[in-house]
């Protein structure tokens, strides 16, 4: 009997074959703790009575949600995390480098086949390199900090096969939004998703990150891509036999198989206020917007900024529209600065902010008020997510976002 990718990753870690439903305890390769949750994890760690961490070199602290601080108590979070790092010998502390989910692979921590847990639900992002990673609460994180282990239930897997060539204005964001619409916001709960097919094979790692990142919006425990040469280049490791074996077997058992033709995808939005309320952009034409947000761990990468810059070059955002651009990391910021992308976006009228979570989680610059409309490239359009509960959030691709910023109303690129 064959195995799915998640069964192989977990099986290798525990040293025996596993099947869906098995409850196993795994050794954890990476712990990621963000600034919001750090003080709570630290408090629970001490309440539990631990006096040392299981391995300081496997723990990564990243400040991103509250950076730069917008409320007077925010800096307490940095202070508590800094003290914890100092006391327990944790060297990997990113204080101003960007969004945690971008950094965990970009800075060279998580590799294919690794198991990682983070105190943020979009920890699923590292599935883009074939790692099993998922979000947990701060109490469980405190337990891992002390023991290096966590119990998990081996999930069933939904296989998503996409073959063919995407049309020019369709991106991986449109694909994952459509899939969430088809599965619904709870359709993959407790399950893994495995993305395969020729369309996926031809995607960049950055495009795959967008899909892994949003797999949790369908309730998934993780959203996985088998590692290939592109993955290994990105992770700076050889594409050897071990890497080649990290893929779902043809005779593995899947709970469900969804098959798509790339040519059938069109630009879409997730409409207020549910991630699975998906409509084609063409049906929303004419919806006036107050603001456009390009950024986040979903779509704040260099290719996303370049896509937007191609559309915005020589043009200007509509009167009254604020276009806010937030690169996902300092590295991306520097690259986009060096190749002229940020210059084009700035000339077009964009407000370019420091890398971080900011607006996506409703803490940073660009908070909206009652009855305002925003088209945003991030991952959640929940009530009150980016301001008051009467803000209307449409989630879209960078291409749709850029075209919308120019027109001042929802527009297909």
């Amino acid at each position, binding site marked *: 009997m064959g195995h799915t990718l998640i069964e192989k990753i977990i099986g290798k870690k525990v040293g025996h074959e596993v099947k869906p439903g098995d*409850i196993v305890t795994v050794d954890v390769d990476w712990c990621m703790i963000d600034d*919001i*949750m750090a*003080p*709570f994890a630290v408090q*629970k760690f001490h*309440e*539990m*009575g*631990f006096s040392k961490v299981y391995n300081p070199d496997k723990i990564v602290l990243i400040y991103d949600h*509250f950076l730069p601080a917008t*409320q007077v*108590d*925010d800096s*307490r*979070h940095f202070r508590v995390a800094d003290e914890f790092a100092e006391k327990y010998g944790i060297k990997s502390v990113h204080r101003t480098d960007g969004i945690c989910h971008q950094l965990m692979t970009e800075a060279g921590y998580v590799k294919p086949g690794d198991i990682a847990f*983070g*105190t*943020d*639900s979009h*920890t699923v992002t590292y599935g883009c390199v074939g790692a099993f990673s*998922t*979000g*947990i*609460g*701060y*109490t*469980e994180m*405190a*337990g891992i900090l*002390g023991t290096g282990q966590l*119990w998990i239930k081996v999930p069933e897997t939904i296989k998503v096969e996409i073959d063919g060539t995407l049309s020019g204005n369709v991106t991986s964001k449109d694909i994952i939004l459509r899939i969430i619409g088809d599965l619904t*916001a*709870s359709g993959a*709960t*407790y399950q893994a998703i495995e993305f395969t097919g020729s369309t996926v094979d031809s995607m960049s790692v950055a495009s795959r990150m967008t899909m892994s990142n949003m797999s949790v919006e369908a*309730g998934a*425990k993780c959203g996985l891509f088998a590692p290939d040469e592109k993955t290994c280049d990105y992770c700076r490791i050889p594409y050897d036999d071990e890497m080649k074996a990290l893929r779902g077997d043809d005779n593995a058992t899947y709970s469900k198989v969804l098959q798509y033709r790339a040519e059938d995808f069109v630009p879409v939005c997730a409409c207020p206020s*549910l991630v699975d309320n998906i409509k084609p952009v063409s049906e929303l034409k004419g919806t006036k917007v107050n603001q456009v947000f390009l950024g986040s761990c979903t779509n704040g990468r260099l290719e996303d900024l370049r896509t937007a810059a191609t559309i915005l070059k020589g043009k200007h955002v509509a009167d009254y529209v604020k276009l806010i651009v937030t690169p996902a990391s300092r590295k991306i910021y520097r690259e986009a600065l060096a190749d002229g992308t940020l210059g084009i976006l700035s000339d077009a009228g964009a407000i370019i902010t420091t890398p971080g979570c900011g607006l996506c*989680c*409703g*803490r940073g610059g660009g908070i909206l008020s009652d009855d305002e409309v925003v088209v945003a490239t991030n991952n*959640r359009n*929940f*009530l*009150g*997510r980016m301001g008051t*509960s009467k803000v209307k959030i449409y989630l879209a691709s960078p291409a749709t976002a850029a075209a919308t910023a120019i027109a001042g109303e929802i527009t297909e690129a």
Partner: protein
Amino acid sequence: MFEAKIWKLGDDIDTDIILPTEYLAFDTVEKMKPYAFSPLRQDLAGMIKPGDMIVAGNNFGCGSSREQAPEVVKALGVSCIVAKSFARIFFRNAINNGLLLIEQPDLYDNVKEGEVAKVEPGKEIIVNGKSYEIANLPENLMEILDAGGLVKAMRKRNGLD
């Protein structure tokens, strides 16, 4: 066995509804309490009394991994949440905080807010004389719940209690 007054919420009650991001940084759960469920029902947190229960539809607790969500529900004194289904991170977080969650497919469609339920964990919920069957959690989770949450379970492991 306990009796509890029902507060009824819908499908996909996400963690941003249970506790919006702007209140996550309060240093105590006590300070967060008034803002629970505020994007959806501003006055709900003030009306929930210790011992009351929440009945909801599918996918309760979807969204972020913020553990403040189950902590604030627990702090309001909610005795249990009965839903058609729960999102997975919320599910783990709730158990780790000693908050009882019960999956039951039929209760939601058959009860009204304000009605009183008799709950016998692992066996049944009775509302208006009608019984709804409920199962126990898996053994490893019952151990955490019985210990009073993961912190207490870990303290025991570390020889402190």
